[in-house]
């Protein structure tokens, strides 16, 4: 894997690339809130040869720049992914999204259908069934809490995110990585901005267009996802024609970390479709 920074519309995004150029379309992995490209580190080696793999940190996450008044909602991230693809000279790619990244992937498949060769939604936000009750409460209290020390907000977030892992040790290590960019005052402000941008109206607006998705679509879910229940997966499966649905037993929300080999197998089959 090789990582580098790239200027996209005046912002510096980090991404790492893997795989090799071949006959297969490139694969782009999009993480969600509040994770980073680290989410995919055990899935990427499971991808078959012949595909260029691109794994970005979205703006304001991981090693990418903090936003400077740019849109960090689903549309803003999606249009930056298109700009990233343009910069990397990728016209047509298979898109994999997790959590909010799945919302971004849905937006791409619907608004830019000729750029999306295949679509995979893993424990994805959809419809108006997100964010979780805890995140809604945290958002509602932001006018009071947004100026509290970063450690306060991060302690709440850490506890909530841990629920998304079956393996608590693994979860603790990954959550440390994910929340590191949000420590200190500037990081806290970015986190607040991300939370304020978690808007279910973005995916609700796509609901009636899901039936128009023509890309082969795989839906993959942790059986015990505490944030986005499997009912969302089933509804997505019913809404997107020809989609496949795989529920992974013993996995919670962070399925790409908890079951990378299973995800790898499912995505390998998906790449043959």
């Amino acid at each position, binding site marked *: 894997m090789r990582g580098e920074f790239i200027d996209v519309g005046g912002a510096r995004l980090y991404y790492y690339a893997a795989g090799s150029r071949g006959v297969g379309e490139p694969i782009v992995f999009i993480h969600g809130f509040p994770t980073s490209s680290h989410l995919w580190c055990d899935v990427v080696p499971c991808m078959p040869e012949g595909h260029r793999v691109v794994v970005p940190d979205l703006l304001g996450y991981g090693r990418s720049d903090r936003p400077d008044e740019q849109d960090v909602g689903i549309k803003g991230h999606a249009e930056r992914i*298109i700009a990233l*693809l*343009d*910069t*990397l*000279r*990728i*016209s*047509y790619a298979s898109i994999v999204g997790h959590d909010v990244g799945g919302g971004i992937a849905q937006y791409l498949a619907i608004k*830019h*259908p*000729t*750029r999306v*060769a295949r679509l995979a939604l893993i424990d994805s936000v959809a419809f108006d069934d997100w964010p979780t009750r805890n995140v809604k409460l945290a958002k509602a209290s932001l006018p009071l809490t947004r100026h509290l020390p970063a450690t306060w907000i991060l302690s709440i977030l850490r506890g909530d995110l841990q629920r998304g892992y079956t393996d608590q040790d693994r979860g603790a290590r990954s959550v440390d990585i994910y929340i590191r960019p949000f420590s200190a005052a500037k990081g806290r402000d970015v986190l607040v901005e991300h939370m304020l941008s978690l808007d279910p109206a973005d995916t609700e607006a796509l609901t009636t267009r899901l039936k*128009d998705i*023509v*890309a*082969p679509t795989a839906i993959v879910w942790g059986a015990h996802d505490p944030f986005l229940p499997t009912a969302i997966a089933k509804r997505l499966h019913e809404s997107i*024609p*020809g989609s496949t649905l795989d529920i992974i037993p013993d996995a919670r929300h962070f399925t790409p970390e908890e079951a990378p080999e299973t995800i790898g197998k499912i995505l390998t089959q998906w790449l043959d*479709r």
Partner: protein
Amino acid sequence: MNPTRLDSFRLLVAQSPNNALARFGLANEALKAGLLREAVENLQAYLSMHEDEGNGYGRLADALAKLGRLDEAKAAYQTGIETARRFGHPGMASDFEERLAELDERE
């Protein structure tokens, strides 16, 4: 080849010939199956009814080039370059320019 998806899109296009995205979907499945003529026919239909941002022209050009219809392929790349630039996709335009140059070299 995925006959199920191919057949599904053929049926969809038969039922709704003016559904641009169904045409695009059928063209993609035809490309995967190596059915280049069917792909070309459906990409042309898609482009006639949908405001594409460039990649549709690129995929059409690729299919035409594989069929040996080089003049038509070059014209499709050229339209793709202009369209990609108009929609703010300079990287895509550069990619098509390279493929166009490769076609010129082949002649």
